[in-house]
């Protein structure tokens, strides 16, 4: 069994190496790494929810949960195995620390809107290609017009969307009544600043730019 005495951002590569299963979406899993780390390390308070809608990139998520003590490190080594609670798409019923089962794209944001209706602070991470799913825009329209200000969406923009987003992603949310910010998806201070920006009566989106590797 691998043990860690003190886990921080620098331990994440070693935790990721424990995830020895057949991870098919390695690039996308790494694209979320810094945003998820900043959320858990600097932004989330007790009682907040984090919903990983981009569920096909869970390796970074599992590694951060393990580093934060929310998921036993020893579970990482069985990643993808028959009896492992950790697979290529997270299952909240199986995996400790996971708030939502996702994988099919476009489901997290509508659910986050439902959570936000109760007043709970909720953060939902989606990908720029995932935004092609129309279900996201049902939620974007509704959340903006309903002024769901406890909802924050993080868009990991690694430019993998088919055809891109002419005019930019942030302006599309802004047109629906959201406040929008952008940040370098690898810059922790910038991410923290964008995620914690004060706003009233509007949901908030942070577009986190990440170079496509």
């Amino acid at each position, binding site marked *: 069994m691998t043990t860690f005495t003190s886990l921080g951002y620098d331990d994440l590569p070693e935790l990721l190496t424990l995830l020895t299963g057949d991870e098919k979406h390695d690039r996308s899993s790494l694209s979320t790494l810094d945003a998820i780390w900043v959320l858990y390390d600097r932004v989330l308070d007790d009682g907040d*929810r984090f919903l990983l809608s981009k569920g096909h990139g869970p390796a970074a998520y599992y590694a951060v949960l393990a580093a934060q003590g929310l998921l036993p490190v020893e579970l990482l080594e069985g990643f993808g195995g028959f009896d492992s609670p950790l697979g290529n798409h997270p*299952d*909240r*019923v199986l995996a400790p620390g996971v*708030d*939502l*089962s996702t994988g*099919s794209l*476009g*489901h997290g*944001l*509508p*659910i*986050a*809107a*439902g*959570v*936000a*209706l*109760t007043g*709970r602070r909720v953060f939902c991470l989606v990908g720029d290609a995932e935004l092609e799913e*129309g*279900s996201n825009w*049902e*939620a974007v*329209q*509704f959340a903006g017009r*309903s002024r769901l200000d406890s909802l924050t969406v993080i868009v990991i923009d690694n430019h993998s969307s088919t055809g891109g987003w002419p005019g930019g992603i942030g302006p599309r949310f802004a047109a629906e009544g959201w406040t929008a910010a952008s940040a370098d998806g690898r810059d922790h201070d910038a991410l923290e600043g964008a995620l914690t920006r004060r706003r009233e009566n509007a949901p908030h989106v942070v577009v986190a730019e990440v170079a496509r590797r």
Partner: protein
Amino acid sequence: MRPRFYELLRRALDEDENVWAVTAEIGSTPIGPHPRHVDVGIREQLLIGVAAGLALEGRRPVAHSYTPFLVERPYEQIKLDLGHNGLGAILVSTGASYDAAREGRTHQAPEDVAALAALPGWTIHVPGHADELEHLFRDALRGDDRVYIRLSAEANHARVDGGGFTLLRRGTTGAPLVLAVGPTLAPTLAATAELDVGVAYLATVRPFPRAALPEALADGDAVVLVEPYLAGTSSAEVSAALLDRPHRLLALGVPNEEFRHYGTGPEHRAAHGLDAQGIRASLEGFLRRAAGI
């Protein structure tokens, strides 16, 4: 049945702060404004997603729309947002199979129960009377599981007490058993009035009463299933209930075909052989074949 549902839901919103109503335009006006009534607009994927989000927070969401827009359009959300996430909600449809006959195929979903029954963990109610709806809906509000209630413009003359499977009439030894679901009971009783058959009633079709059916069939070997939705929706359940017994099954319901007619609900019911005359004709043919005539 539909006005009773709106009345019950409004009352539940007033009495239980855990209850939320979620609509997508349809039904929004009769439910009326309330701090926990959310109309998401014509966005049915969001309808289910929002219900799941509320359930994630421990609330009891009641999502409502027309049958095809509640069950078919957001089917993956029902499967994943609710089912795979282990979250509960009450889905209440209106329109049944052909209440909206004049609207055409786009507003009809006779396959709804079969589709939902293909997913694990759903309790499915098909009340035949507004009083049954009231009982079933109140029970559903108390739980945290996944419940589907199928409202219908068709209704029986009176409610049937006793909850799930109810044996209403026994035939002589070896007589067939006719199992009527929800609002098919009235035409089934009329069709079988002079026949030597047993008649049972079922308003809760999932879970299916696998233990009660063999008991009610007694020494008989023939079952006639009368369902107000896709014919054969519960055939596999009857087979499972009678696994160790040779038996014959006639499954009546809405045929699996593109039915390109408008008109009225009663016209559709008659065309599908689900009025008293049609049920009687199917039943007599089945009995003649069984007797080798």
